[in-house]
Each structure stands twice: as structure tokens, then as C-alpha cells.
């Protein structure tokens, strides 16, 4: 102990042995209500007991109603039907119904996040455009969308726009063909053919090659400060190898499945083939993308504006071109500001997808409502809903936080 050496130089003249004894005694008799350390522990215990007491009180009230808490209903036959998402029949158990809902929500959220980011980026940058008209159009879009409740927008979209599209017998047919009616949109979609088994190794090779090139490029960027080759070098093998494979193997590995209008035995018109987006899904997706896009636009704009003017001035003084300033100086700094609020917009989009119930899309919440109505197990289903949304929220913030951290490290 290095302090011992000097202790000799400061004699303790002021305190005699009596006083020391008194002090020791004094310390041992601190009553608990004045003892800071004890009080800290006590405060926590009291708080926890209070919380537990409220919980216990609620639980007693629940039990007094003679209600049971059990998840055994999940194995029972659902006996209702669900049309959206993965295969489901009324004989399937409740658990599968819930899975249908979870997957539907995940689908709408995943696609929505990608599209909303694109819309937000374009609009946010358009808002900063030097072109007065473009900037004003973006501004009007942002202000209108942000100041109207999402649910009102969904009602407008679904009941006042999509429902008013032509009925299926008069469906719009766009070249492709793409069928648009108030039943939804049917698009051509690639379908796996017999020779796909021969082709997919080419895909894998191309992907691995592209990733490897990206890593090499990243390394050289780190060491030399400049990329060793253009991004085109990465894209070329990614495209060229699969095309080569396509030409080499016999037959087409992928076929384009074209939608087609057919008349069923009962006289029902149906568009078969391709991939179908139901009108409920389309309305929800569109609503979420347009709404969240407006918010992301603001995030992007604020991010770009947050880069201090001095940064661009310094770059200009060093002779960078406008383009280089944007890509090397402004965007990397702006991204650090953009990502945290972007995460919360992604979370909002996921949570807002629960409004699906108002327009008949079978998301997690809508399926859950059917489940508790038909099984009567309100509390059990509620906990399942909470757990699912929390899991999704945590997953998104986990992934985005990793991105965020990498971003910050690159910059330092």
C-alpha cells in the first residue's frame, strides 16, 4: 500500500483513543431508518413488494372469477378458416393459426421496411433538392402524410381507393400480364423448373465470389484508404456466372409463371398463376410504406443537414468535387445521425402493421382476435401477442444496433 509511507508525516494529534472508541461505538448504533445503505435496500424491497402486491391483487381477482389459465387450447382444432399466408384449414390447431398470423406480420413488416426506406431516401433527398418544385412536392407529401392518422389513411386507401378498383371481371390488365382488380394484384413470378437443380450451384458460386471480392475490397479500403477496384468488379461476376450457367445447362432452370384469368366450375372468375397480392395486403403495405416513408424522409433530411457546414467547406477547400463531398464526407457522417431514428421508424412500422385488423388483413393481431373470440382464452392470447411483438421489436433493434455499431467504428 503506497499510502502507508506518508502516513507518518501527518500525525493524528486531534483524536485521542477515547474519541476513537467513541467513534467506533457511534458507528455501530446507526438506526436503520437513518442508515443510507440500509435505506437504499429497503426502498427497493418496498418497491418490489408494492409491484408484486398489485400483481397478486390482480391475479386474485382474475382467479376469483373462476377463470383458468392454460395453453392447452393451442392443440385444439381451430374450426375457422384463414385465407391469407401459409396453408391453413379449419382442422388445423390454434397454434398453427397463430403461426399464420406471425408470418403474415413478418412478411408485411419485412417488405414494408425495405420499401419505406427507399421511399424515405428518395423523398428526403428530394426535399433538399435545389429544384424548387421537386423540393416543394416532397415537402407537401411529407406534411400531408405526417399529419393524418395512419388508420384514417388505411381506411381511405382500402375503402375509398382499392375497393373502388374495377371488379375482377373488368380487371385492368397491364402488359406482363399484371392483373389489377379490387381482389388484389397478380404479378408474373418465376417458378422453379426441373433443371434448377443443375443451376443453383452457379448462383452459390456467384454469391460467394461477390462476397469474397467485397471483403477484399473492404480490406484494401482500410489499408490504403482507397478502394482497389470499382464496385462494378463485384457486380460483374454476380451477373455473369449465373448467366453462363443458364446458357450451359439444358432447359430453363426458372420459368416465368404468367397469371391467367380462368373461370372455375361455379362460374367464379379467378386469376391463377404468378403471385397474388391480396387487396388487404396491398392496402396495408402501401399505407405503411407511404406513412413510414414520410417519417424516414424527415430522418434522412435531418441527418444530411446535421453535417456541419464547415465539413463541406473544408472539403471544398481541399478541392473535392461536389460528388466526392457527398459520398466521402457528408453521407458517412449523416448516416451516423440517421441510423438511430431509422431504427425507431422500423419498429414503428412493425407495430403499426397491427392496424391490419381494421382492413381485414390477417396479421398477428387479427388472427389473435379470432382466436380469443372462438376459444375464449383472452389472457393467454394476449400474452402471446405481447411476446410476439416484443420478439420482433428486439430482433429489429438487435440487428440495427449491430449495423449502427459497425458504422460508428468505421468512422473513428
Amino acid at each position, binding site marked *: 500500500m503506497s499510502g502507508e509511507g506518508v502516513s507518518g508525516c501527518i500525525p493524528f494529534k486531534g483524536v485521542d483513543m477515547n474519541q476513537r472508541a467513541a467513534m467506533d461505538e457511534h458507528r455501530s448504533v446507526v438506526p436503520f431508518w437513518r442508515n443510507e445503505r440500509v435505506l437504499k435496500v429497503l426502498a427497493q424491497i418496498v418497491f418490489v413488494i408494492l409491484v408484486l402486491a398489485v400483481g397478486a391483487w390482480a391475479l386474485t381477482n382474475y382467479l376469483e372469477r373462476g377463470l383458468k389459465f392454460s395453453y392447452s387450447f393451442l392443440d385444439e382444432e381451430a374450426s375457422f378458416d384463414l385465407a391469407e399466408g401459409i396453408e391453413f384449414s379449419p382442422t388445423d390447431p390454434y397454434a398453427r393459426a397463430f403461426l399464420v398470423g406471425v408470418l403474415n406480420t413478418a412478411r408485411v413488416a419485412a417488405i414494408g421496411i425495405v420499401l419505406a426506406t427507399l421511399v424515405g431516401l428518395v423523398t428526403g433527398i428530394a426535399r*433538399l433538392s435545389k429544384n424548387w418544385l421537386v423540393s416543394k412536392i416532397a415537402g407537401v407529401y411529407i406534411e400531408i402524410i405526417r399529419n393524418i392518422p395512419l388508420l384514417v389513411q388505411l381506411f381511405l386507401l382500402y375503402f375509398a381507393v382499392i375497393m*373502388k378498383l374495377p371488379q375482377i371481371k373488368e380487371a385492368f390488365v397491364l402488359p406482363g400480364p399484371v392483373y389489377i382488380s379490387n381482389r388484389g394484384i397478380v404479378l408474373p413470378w418465376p417458378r422453379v423448373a426441373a433443371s434448377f437443380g443443375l443451376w443453383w450451384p452457379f448462383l452459390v458460386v456467384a454469391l460467394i465470389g461477390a462476397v469474397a471480392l467485397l471483403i477484399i475490397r473492404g480490406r484494401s479500403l482500410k489499408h490504403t484508404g482507397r478502394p482497389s477496384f470499382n464496385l462494378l468488379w463485384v457486380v460483374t461476376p454476380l451477373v455473369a456466372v449465373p448467366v453462363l450457367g443458364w446458357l450451359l445447362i439444358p432447359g430453363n432452370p426458372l420459368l416465368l409463371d404468367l397469371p391467367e384469368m380462368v373461370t372455375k*366450375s*361455379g*362460374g367464379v372468375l379467378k386469376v391463377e398463376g404468378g403471385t397474388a397480392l391480396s387487396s388487404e395486403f396491398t392496402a396495408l403495405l402501401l399505407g405503411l410504406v407511404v406513412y413510414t416513408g414520410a417519417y424516414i424522409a424527415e430522418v434522412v433530411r435531418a441527418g444530411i443537414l446535421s453535417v456541419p457546414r464547415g465539413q463541406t467547406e473544408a472539403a471544398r477547400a481541399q478541392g473535392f468535387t461536389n460528388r466526392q463531398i457527398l459520398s466521402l464526407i457528408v453521407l458517412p457522417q449523416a448516416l451516423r445521425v440517421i441510423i438511430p431514428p431509422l431504427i425507431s421508424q422500423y419498429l414503428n412500422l412493425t407495430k403499426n402493421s397491427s392496424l391490419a385488423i381494421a382492413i381485414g388483413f390477417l396479421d398477428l393481431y387479427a388472427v389473435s382476435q379470432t382466436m380469443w*373470440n372462438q376459444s375464449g382464452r383472452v389472457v393467454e392470447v394476449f400474452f402471446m401477442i405481447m411476446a410476439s411483438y416484443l420478439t420482433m421489436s428486439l430482433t429489429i433493434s438487435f440487428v440495427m444496433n449491430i449495423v449502427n455499431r459497425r*458504422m460508428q467504428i468505421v468512422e473513428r
Partner: protein
Amino acid sequence: MKVKASTPLVRFFLTLDVDYNMPYDLITKLEGGIMMKGKLCVLFAGLLVLALILTACAPGKKEAAEEEAVEAVGRLQLVKERGMLIMGCNAELPGFGYINPAGDFEGFDIDFGKAIAAAVFGDATKIEYRPLTAAERLPALQTGEVDVLNRNTTWTLTRDSANELDWAAVTFYDGQGMMVRKDSGWKSLEDMAGATVSCTTGTTTEMNLADAFRSRGVEYTPLLFESTQDTNTAYEEGRADGETSDKSQLAALRSAMANPDEHVILDVTMSKEPLGPLTAHGDNQWNDVVRWVVWGIIQAEESGVSSKNVDEMLSSKDPTIQRLLGVSGEMGTSLGLSDDFMVNVLKAVGNYEEIYERWLGPEGINIPRGPNRLWNKGGLLYPMAFR
């Protein structure tokens, strides 16, 4: 993770020619704020007090007292003391329960509520309506939030036994049907292979629909909505090929469509749907009041007493009419009401026929009376004996 100018996306943005030298002041960071005069902690304390006051405004305590009262003296006494009947109802079903442009509830189900209010208070306006969704209607009654629920609710064994509810009577015999477009040419469910059917979720309808198609081995696509109105909109706009619901509802909905003649209700009954008012389990006296008001209204039609002739009928020699109108006997007293309660009811809403004609007849949404005729006219309405 760097964004490069060479990526196509960024290149695209570059053409938009960003003015990234825009003034920085747009992102105002508020650091200190101004020194407002009044102390903010006073404001804070004020808000707290305010929150408490608002909480105190909540009816919690008073209704708690009501709850204790109901255990002691019964719902009838409670309703009388409150001076107001609270009825759970539908707010968006044409003909049965909806809000008119004046903001008032009206419809077939609503009239039975008015009748109960007239029976208890002699005043049909002493009633408050609680619009309830299909999902929340039963809990609302169980927890005592409403005195009576009259919201096209099907009398089923499970609901009657497991959910602690008691039906009072049947006001309307219904069955689940299917409405389709006339030009589809469909006559039965078997014809409807591949059809999309819209349906309200959280009801027995949803399950009956699945059962009906499954038992016939017909493939179909359900389209589920939370409210009847949305279910109907989806069908009417051609989003669905068929709509399923209770036949009465289908008729009501059809009547409100732009071209009612283009739609037909198939001659298929997927289920029995006896609808009527219900009360919380275990309060027999209150349940009796509701049920005898309903039966009284039916009996009035059978005896030919209506809102127009009720005053003349007071001097009728028919003993049934005398008992019904409280001229003789103490029917009302034994229910806990005044003896002339049916006079008040009939003056307020009329007999079953009048109510039916008003809302469901040709002037209303036009549903043929079908099984809802009197027993002696080939229907199912059979009031128990007034004696």
C-alpha cells in the same frame, strides 16, 4: 459499411442535386429554454392534482356501490334507483340498431330496449345505449356494464351455460344465410366452388361457414372483417363473391344497397340463429321482467292491441287483454313493475307487428316475416300465457 458515390442509388440521388449547404438552423437543439414566469413545479403539481381530479370524476366508486347494491337487491331495483336503463346494442346494423343523422339510436333491437325502459319507468326515453362490438358484448354483460344486452346475439348452449348469461326470450328467429349476386346464377353452396366469402370475425357465423363448406367438400376463400359494415362493403364492391351472415342481417344489408335487386339470398340455412335480449346469469327477477315485456309485446299482436287502440282496449271485455293491460289481475306487481306496464310499453313502441313493420317491413329494410309470424299464423312466435 461505407456508402460510395459509385453505387447506382447514390448516383441517382446525385442527379437530384442536393443543396447540402442549407442553413444548419433547421435542426434546432433546445438546450436551455426560456425562463418562464410561474414555477414549473407548480405546474407539475397542478397537473398531478388535475389528473387526480379527473380520475375522481371516473365513475369507479359509484358503480362499485351499484355492484354491491345489485347483489343485495337485484338488477331491477338498481335500474329503478339509477333512473336509467343501460342497454348494450349494435351501432351499425341497419334495421336492428344504428345511429341516425340526428345522432340517435334506432332500430328493431333498440325498440325492445325502449319497451323495457317504458315498462320499468313508464318512460321510454330513460335509456342509455352502449354500442358494443361482437367481441366485447358478452364481457360487457358479465361485468355488469350493461343491464341488458340486445345485440342480435344467438342463443347457444355454450354461451348460456359457460358464459354466465341468461337469455330472456327470442325476439327474432334467424338462420345463417348466404347472399350472392344474381348474375352468378348460384342456387346452393355446392355451386360456389372457389368463391370468396366475406364474413364477420368473432361470431358463430365464422365457424358455421367453415363447417358448411367443409361438410360439402367445397373449396372457398374466407375474407374476415371486424365489423358487419366492412364485411358488407367488401361484398358490395365485388371484393367477395358472397357474403354470409344471419339472414335478417343479409336482408337488412341488401335493402341498403344501391341496387338491391342484383343480389339474392340463397335458400340455404347454415344454422339456427334464435336472437333475443339477454341478462347476466342468476338474476331471475330481472330476467323475468325482460322476458315478459317481450312476450307482452307478442301477446299484444296476438290479441290485436296496438299503440293506436290501446286506450280503447282498456275497456275491452277480453280477460287476456284485461290482464295484459293491467285492468285486472296483478301481473305487473308480481314482476316488480306497475300493473299497467304493458300500456306504457305499447304506447311507446307498439306491438310486435308494429315494431316489425316499422323497421323490418316494406317501409324498413323489408324482410319477409317468415318464421317470425305468430304461432297461429304459421310462425314460431308463441308468447307464454298471461295469467
